[in-house]
């Protein structure tokens, strides 16, 4: 119980009759990069809004730094940096002025402004009005804003939305660097590949329900490939090469090139007709899609 930096219990949000988030129990440990994955409309932003107190849960509890968010909101938020959905900014102010206005309230040294602009590589436009920025630049400014007060917990809701591939790589490197400094990071995305490349733990949300939550390596373990062999005699085939039978196919999970060659030779010697030898790739992607599909048909 005391080991989680963010923990929610039965977190639920109803919009009228529509359940956007249902009984979500997030468990996020200090120092993790927590990848919060789910298709569009799954309830990621709604969950994040509740973590920040922007929206009141219909039901359930949010505990951050072992404190009840409802009771200790200000103390908690002092150590949280966030970027929710689209970047927030004042269009008529420059990048520097946008940071200055936050700096006044957060009461951090002025020098920190140039530091964070440097981190997101916006120093060259520090004195330009933000209304002329590209989406990618606004997104980076949003991250700079979130980092201004050196938060212990960083919550980034789809921070790479609208970025070009180069920008995405840059943000990824920045996030990794921040994690190395010990900051706990929650990053949401609707793209598995994005989360897979960066997260240490993954939480998958679909239709408002948290359907999976574990380390990224545990998720990878689900994604083992296997070799399917179809012959005219399933039972004999299994006796020869082992593995498991599913319908008229024998599957084995340990196979390198040499083994495959040996299997085929053995089957041929035993006068078995080999129809197909296929590698079935259970990519992470396929597993993810299957999870989502199951959740959506419930």
């Amino acid at each position, binding site marked *: 119980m005391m080991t989680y930096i963010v923990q929610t219990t039965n977190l639920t949000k109803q919009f009228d009759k529509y359940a956007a988030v249902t009984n979500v129990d997030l468990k996020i440990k200090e120092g993790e990069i927590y990848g919060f994955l789910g298709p569009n409309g799954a309830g990621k932003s709604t969950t994040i809004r509740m973590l*920040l107190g922007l929206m009141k849960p219909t039901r359930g509890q949010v505990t951050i730094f072992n404190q009840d968010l409802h009771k200790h909101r200000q103390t908690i938020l002092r150590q949280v940096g966030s970027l929710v959905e689209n970047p*927030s900014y004042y269009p008529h102010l420059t990048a520097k002025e946008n940071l200055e206005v936050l700096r006044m*309230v957060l009461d951090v040294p002025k020098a920190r402004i140039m530091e964070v602009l440097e981190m997101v590589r916006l120093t060259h436009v520090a004195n330009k*009005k933000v209304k002329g920025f590209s989406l990618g630049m606004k997104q980076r400014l949003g991250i700079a804003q979130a980092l201004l007060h050196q938060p212990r917990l960083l919550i980034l809701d789809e921070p790479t939305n609208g970025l070009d591939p180069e920008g995405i790589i840059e943000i990824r490197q920045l996030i990794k660097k921040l994690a190395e400094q010990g900051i706990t990071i929650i990053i949401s995305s609707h793209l598995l590949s994005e989360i897979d490349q960066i997260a240490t733990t993954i939480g998958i949300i679909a239709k408002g329900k948290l359907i999976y939550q574990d380390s990224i390596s545990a998720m990878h373990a689900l994604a083992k490939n296997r070799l399917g062999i179809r012959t005219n005699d399933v039972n004999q085939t299994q006796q020869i090469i082992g593995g498991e039978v599913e319908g008229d196919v024998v599957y084995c999970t340990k196979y390198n090139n040499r083994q495959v060659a040996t299997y085929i030779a053995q089957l041929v010697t035993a006068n078995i007709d080999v129809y197909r030898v296929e590698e079935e790739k259970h990519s992470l992607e396929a597993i993810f899609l299957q999870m989502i599909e199951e959740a959506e048909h419930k």
Partner: protein
Amino acid sequence: MIGTLIKAEWYKLKHHHIYAILIIGPLLTLLIGMLNPMMGDMGAYHPWLSLFLFMNLPYALLFLPLITGVIACIICRYEHQAGGWKQWATLPVTRTQIYVSKLILIALLVLIIQMIYGLVIFIAGTVKGFDVVFPYWTVGKFIIGGWLATFPMIALQLWAAMHWRSFAVAFTINVVFTLPSILAINSERFGPFYPWAQPFFAMYVDESMSGMLFIPISQMLLVTGGSFIVFLVLGIATFKQKAI
């Protein structure tokens, strides 16, 4: 914290030509006063009194409430534009502090407008060469009285400007409440209870020049103070409940 928040709000007004907005009400009033042909025919009266009669009316009845509404809209507009509310609400401050800091800034800006107005009438009378000394006390009283009388409007307009993204909607509400004041001040039964008419009553100067008259002070406090507290409490409650 409130002090810091007010400073930050003031900082956000950068590049907004706020000085032009502060000065426009008093200047328009001056223009109307100068164009009024009756201004010259008031020889029998105290010269400052006739100046107040002609200028305080359009100022307190129209320009002051309208400009107050415009300021409330501006102070919320940049929050509506690109997720400002969201960012402001994730700072380690309470929603009440955010709301109240905006309210106080509007009130301070209106006070500046009132002082500019005082200066404008002083200059107008001096240029005209009034031979009677400037009634500081009377002017001071109606400037402060008029200012206090705008508090309910400030609270309601902030509430509206916060709630509706559209500048047009918030401003229309402002106009819709302001215009009936013209009728309200002519009604002895209804007028004293209409919040938007309060600046007019507070700035109405009669022949005795003692300021703050026309309706009893207790009643004005009740109407102004009462409606201010109601609008303020409702505004804060709405903002606290608002899902951002």
